[in-house]
């Protein structure tokens, strides 16, 4: 009976599109520019396994890691635009690489399909820090310009966040690069540095419980986030007034026909609205945030503008 319904439902949705319906002819390759088992890869695999029933073909994840995404994305834009190859991009990394002088791709080389995940940036300090509010931090840093912040790498996403905070707060600090977010937060927990900027999901396990190790002082958003309803946004505190964080979404190489894009937008929309999928994402601690191709295109444009105008000036 269930099957019948599913068939019926499928038939109903499929009929109006029949005139220009496109379907993948074989397995679909999904390029992930980071290694198997990485955060990006895990998220991609959760979505891909749930999306298969709406796409009707197997989604094969092809991990092409290296050069912070450059290798995989270069391959992605050079793939045949026939709908058999799509891929995940990470923002802001993709747009910031695309604006570098030696870039091997630009945002014109891709066609957006849908956004999958977003993570909002946060400012954190150790639980025993004297700073109770973001204002405490800014005031202290204005007086003494050599407080230290750990970052996840030179000009990496969390370094950009710290830089945004410092510029908008009008203070100087010292950024110490650590290999990745885990190491960056470990240094903060050990007290080797004074504050840090990271993403909501990274700090969530460290701020709860009976003995929280970290304290969140502010979030990089225009409205408060549901995870920390009591934490003010930076905008409220008169600091950086836009959203900053990371996003991951699906794109196809330039030249992919519109009917193919339509097919994927519908398929992924359906997948991301599926309760089973929502449950799977919750379990994996992934913050799903569906945007269709037009909304996602807008986000990419914004990030591109940010990379060109804001980020490049940040480190001067």
């Amino acid at each position, binding site marked *: 009976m269930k099957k019948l319904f599913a068939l019926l439902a499928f038939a109903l949705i499929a009929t109006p599109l029949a005139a220009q319906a496109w379907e993948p002819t074989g397995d679909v390759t999904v390029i992930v520019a980071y290694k198997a088992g990485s955060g990006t890869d895990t998220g991609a695999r959760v979505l891909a396994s749930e999306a298969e029933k709406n796409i009707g073909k197997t989604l094969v994840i092809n*991990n092409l890691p*290296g050069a912070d995404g*450059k*290798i995989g994305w270069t391959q992605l834009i050079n793939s045949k635009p026939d709908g058999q190859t799509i891929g995940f991009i990470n923002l802001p990394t993709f747009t910031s690489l695309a604006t570098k002088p030696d870039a091997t791709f630009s945002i014109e080389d891709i066609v957006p399909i849908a956004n999958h995940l977003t993570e909002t940036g946060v400012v954190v300090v150790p639980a025993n820090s004297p700073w109770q509010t973001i204002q405490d931090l800014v005031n202290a840093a204005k007086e003494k310009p050599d407080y230290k912040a750990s970052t996840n790498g030179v000009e990496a996403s969390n370094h950009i966040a710290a830089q945004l905070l410092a510029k908008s707060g009008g203070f100087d600090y010292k950024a110490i*690069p650590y290999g990745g977010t*885990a190491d960056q937060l470990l240094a903060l927990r*050990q007290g080797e540095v004074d504050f840090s900027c990271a993403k909501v999901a990274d700090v969530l396990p460290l701020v709860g419980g009976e003995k929280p190790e970290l304290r969140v002082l502010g979030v990089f958003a225009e409205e408060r986030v549901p995870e920390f309803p009591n934490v003010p946004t930076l905008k409220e505190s008169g600091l950086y007034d836009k959203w900053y964080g990371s996003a991951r979404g699906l794109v196809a190489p330039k030249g992919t026909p519109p009917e193919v894009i339509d097919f994927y937008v519908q398929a992924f929309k359906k997948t991301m609205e599926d309760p089973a999928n929502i449950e799977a994402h919750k379990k994996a601690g992934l913050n799903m945030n569906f945007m269709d191709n037009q909304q996602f295109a807008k986000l990419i444009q914004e990030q591109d503008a940010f990379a060109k105008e804001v980020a490049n000036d940040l480190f001067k």
Partner: protein
Amino acid sequence: MDTLSLMGSGFLQALTPLNLLMMALSTAVGVTIGCLPGLSAAMGVALLLPVTFGMDPATGLIILGGIYCGAIFGGSISAILIHTPGTPASAATAIEGYQMTLRGEAAKALTVACFASFCGGLLSCVSLYFFAPPLAQLAMKFKSPEYFWLSLFGLTIIAGVSSKSMLKGLMSGVLGLLISTVGMDPMEGVPRFMFGQSSLYNGVDVTCALIGLFSMSQILILAEKKIQPRPQAAKFKTKFELSGKEVKRLSPTIIRSWIIGNIIGILPGAGASIACFIGYNEARRFSKRKDEFGKGSIEGVAGSEAANNAVTGGSLIPMLTLGIPGESVTAVLMGGLIIHGLQPGPELFSTYAGMTYTFFAGFVLVQFFMLFIGMLGCKGFAQISRLSDAILIPSIFLLCVVGSYAIHNNVVEVVIMMIFGVIGFLVRKFDMNATAIVLGMILGPIGERGLRRSLMLSDGDPSILFSTPLCWLLIALCVLGVLSPLLMDRMERKMREKAHTA
């Protein structure tokens, strides 16, 4: 979760049918590799590493552990039957084992070797369970200056692994350090020595280099010689027995060798090949039947085999907790961990404790598989130990190419593997040390980041490097690390002399 429940759930996780099947297979493969003269345990693990990429990390690690333990035991089969140790770890086993074969007691020698290996391996798991978690706790206290000293301590291991010529060992280590600087500068984000190759952005992949240095180079070494048939293995009845009386006689030897092997395993720089000689020699020193030594003593076989297998569990401790591999096999295993997205260190005992304890449980269970496979399959393995190089060379070559490609699905890595194959070949020809190169490559970035980050934190004031008691402890260990191999080397040489003159 407390340790006890972690231990329990580890066993539950490890006992899935898939894991059990993989344990049986990997141990059998390990024994096969071990008994083939010329193929070492490090090489076996490096070759089979790519096979585990697609698997669950715990299953993948269990496979690598199975190969490690199997290979260390497997070396004794060819040592006993054709007087050619399959791996250097069984060099001391050949002394008494082959004498027993000549006396027509090959079956008994193999039984003793298998039983002693089993006991040594199983007992070494005890220290893994006891010492690894507290050491991981300590590692939580490590900050940037401590990591600098830790890597320096690791580099003193080079002095140990290169006991033949310290100068050449140090040269190898420096080569490794130089290779480790290729790629993106960790502090400034500037490319170094990349020559426009964007695949070198993250540096030279250690696993890829390992496959080249250990496996590919072995092909070149094997191919250099004319292919000759191996000596016929001694014929023996498949009757394996060990009386209760003999077990009782062997137990003090086994326990002694366990302690020796374990300590040697934990200490960086000394591996199974040294443990077997010390284990053998202590067995003789304490034996009530010294006259049997040199003529085929079961205690001699047990002393050597229990010691080399006791190294296995011990050697995992510094690798898992501090990210400092003490010898080549654990260096390869560490490459495997990193490929599965697991960074050695305290996180393995907190965030990834479930996986780690599953691996530990698998390591315990592998010992039982080794016992069964060893007891039942000796005759078959005896035939394998005579496998011709004409088959071996192309098979290993195939595995090298497929393996290095599989790391990142990247052809450039195959080229890098080949280059390291040639480097490995030359390194052996010049009596330099491949393990030292690998250690340099692994520890270089840890030390560089530790030092530069410390100085960045202190505004260039070097006193930060001497600011905590932990720093001083590590400095003391560095000094010990430089001196201990020299002492070890003297001890081993003395014992080898004794073993031969007796």
